[in-house]
């Protein structure tokens, strides 16, 4: 009897899933921790480079969060950057051509990403998993080509420059620090949204599809429905981060959203950890600054990335987040 209660407690501790907990208690501890994390860069406000990195980290958190959401239903999108680009281009075109307010532009960008994801998802999500990979990879390339050939509308290879900075409720986010506050707020909200989503039955059903699609389908959770939901919502995250990025950098071009960016997002996700909310945050936090800090030895660095990726897959399939779980698991054993 004693033994079984012990395992019960251990298992309860190891799980962070919705059903095993009283609703909305444990995770509230996250919020202060996140707020502290996002406040750290404000102490480095004197160094614009650090603030720049902090902005990129925040945008990448939103971006990779979207990919993580898609991945939790068992799919890996290889055109995540295309949806980022779609959000960016759509928002920029609204801002520059139609002089719409920032909020409207961003909404338009997100809406375009979601619509495209819905249409693409409707076509490919009824096929076997491997086609999803092949087609999303090709679609990412297609997006880049369309932007390249887009003539005056997209500015071709030169892209669109001189994008006015973000303006919200009469305040212009024209300094790095002010934009950081905006980006951090958005990243924070995206994290809280995901935490909340995966506490709900809907979130649980997304995980069910990721864990065992046949079983989920057989017990009434539609694979296609769940994957389409995650693909559309995840791509909305990408579009949102793209719209923000464009207004931060003041410049977009097709190469800002090529396949390397999609692959970078995958690497961040895998190294940080799939299947948890913390993983994408860790991934973005660790992997964003590295290329910026070591610009000189790019080849060595990429080789190191490749090796790290394989080692993480081999020894830490749950990513860096898995280290914590592993340690806890070892302690739990007698």
């Amino acid at each position, binding site marked *: 009897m004693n033994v079984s209660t012990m395992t019960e407690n251990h298992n309860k501790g190891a799980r962070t899933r919705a059903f095993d907990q009283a609703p909305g208690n444990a995770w509230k501890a996250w919020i202060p921790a996140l707020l502290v994390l996002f406040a750290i860069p404000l102490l480095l406000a004197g160094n614009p480079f650090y603030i720049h990195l902090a902005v990129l980290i925040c945008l990448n958190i939103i971006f990779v969060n979207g990919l993580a959401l898609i991945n939790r239903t068992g799919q890996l999108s290889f055109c995540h950057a295309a949806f980022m680009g779609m959000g960016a281009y759509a928002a920029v075109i609204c801002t520059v051509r139609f002089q719409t307010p920032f909020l409207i532009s961003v909404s338009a960008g997100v809406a375009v990403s979601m619509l495209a994801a819905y249409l693409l998802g409707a076509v490919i999500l009824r096929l076997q998993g491997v086609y999803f990979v092949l087609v999303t990879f090709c679609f990412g390339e297609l997006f880049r080509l369309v932007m390249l050939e887009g003539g005056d509308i997209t500015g071709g290879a030169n892209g669109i420059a001189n994008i006015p900075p973000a303006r919200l409720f009469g305040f212009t986010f024209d300094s790095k620090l002010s934009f950081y506050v905006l980006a951090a707020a958005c990243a924070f909200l995206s994290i809280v949204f995901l935490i909340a989503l995966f506490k709900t039955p809907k979130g649980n059903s997304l995980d069910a599809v990721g864990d065992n699609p046949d079983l989920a389908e057989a017990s009434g959770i539609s694979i296609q429905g769940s994957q389409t939901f995650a693909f559309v919502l995840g791509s909305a995250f990408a579009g949102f981060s793209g719209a923000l990025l464009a207004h931060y950098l003041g410049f977009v071009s097709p190469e800002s959203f090529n396949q390397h960016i999609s692959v970078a997002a995958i690497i961040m996700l895998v190294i940080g950890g799939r299947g948890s909310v913390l993983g994408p945050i860790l991934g973005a936090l660790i992997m964003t600054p590295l290329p910026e800090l070591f610009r000189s030895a790019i080849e060595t660095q990429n080789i190191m990335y490749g090796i790290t990726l394989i080692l993480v*897959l*081999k020894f830490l399939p749950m990513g860096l987040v898995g280290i914590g779980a592993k340690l806890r698991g070892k302690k739990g054993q007698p």
Partner: protein
Amino acid sequence: MIRLRAFGDTAVDFTFLIGQALTNGLIIGLLYLLMAIGFTLVFGVMRVVNFAHGEFYMLGAFSAYVCVTKLQLPFLAAVLATFILTLVLGWIIEVVVMKGFRGEELNGMIATIGLAMILQNGALMIFGPDPQSMPAVAEGVVSLGPVMLPMSRLYVVAFSLVVLVLLYGFLMHSKGGRALRAVVQDIEIANAQGIRSQFMYPLGFGIGVALAAVAGALMAPVFSVSPSIGSTPLLKAFIVVILGGLGSIPGAALAALLLGVFESVANPFMSSSFSDMLLFGFVILMLIFRPSGLLGKAGR
């Protein structure tokens, strides 16, 4: 982007252009076919989408380049050496890197991304980013009616066909090939029949990537050689596999040749990025109306 410009820029004869484009298309189609078959073989055995496939094409091109220009080997020997070297390399990589990911679709695929990064950046460190060119395999031009064919390209056709015939013979008539096909069809049944799949994984991976490398070696004298040349053939292999239907070799053959011909015919009339756009549009339409590929059976 790979381009095969139609010969004779001054020519205006339309039939000449089309004839030329068709022949060029068949040549490049054969290249895509080699890539796609190698890709399908790796997928069939490992259930893994090999993102490093294009990098083996690139390695093959460099291997041929080094063999011919530095070691002064004849081209045939260079291609043969490339095949053996990459087969061994693929074998080793399978055992050292991919072994842990056999049958794991998602993780195996991500591991090949890591592999691609290592291979491409390794080549960048060794060879530098600048494109290298290699002497043509043969001089002279053969004319077939109005169509002019440079000998160097006929060589590519001949070699590709020989490789395909050898592969067919191996898969259909040798013991190892039959075992490999059995593994591709169903690993459990193959195991039950006493096929040692432990041996088949590295063999399948090795042959698959060696085919990509041979495609690269054959194209090295025609195009320039640089560490970044792998991405386009990879993308084209994906398209061929989608159009042909995954696992269907006849479908892949048809799709590869059609793709090559389409690109060559479109080449004089539009930019390659525009023809790629049309192609992707076609791929999406295909998926809506015939998701199982050009020759695929309905169902799934």
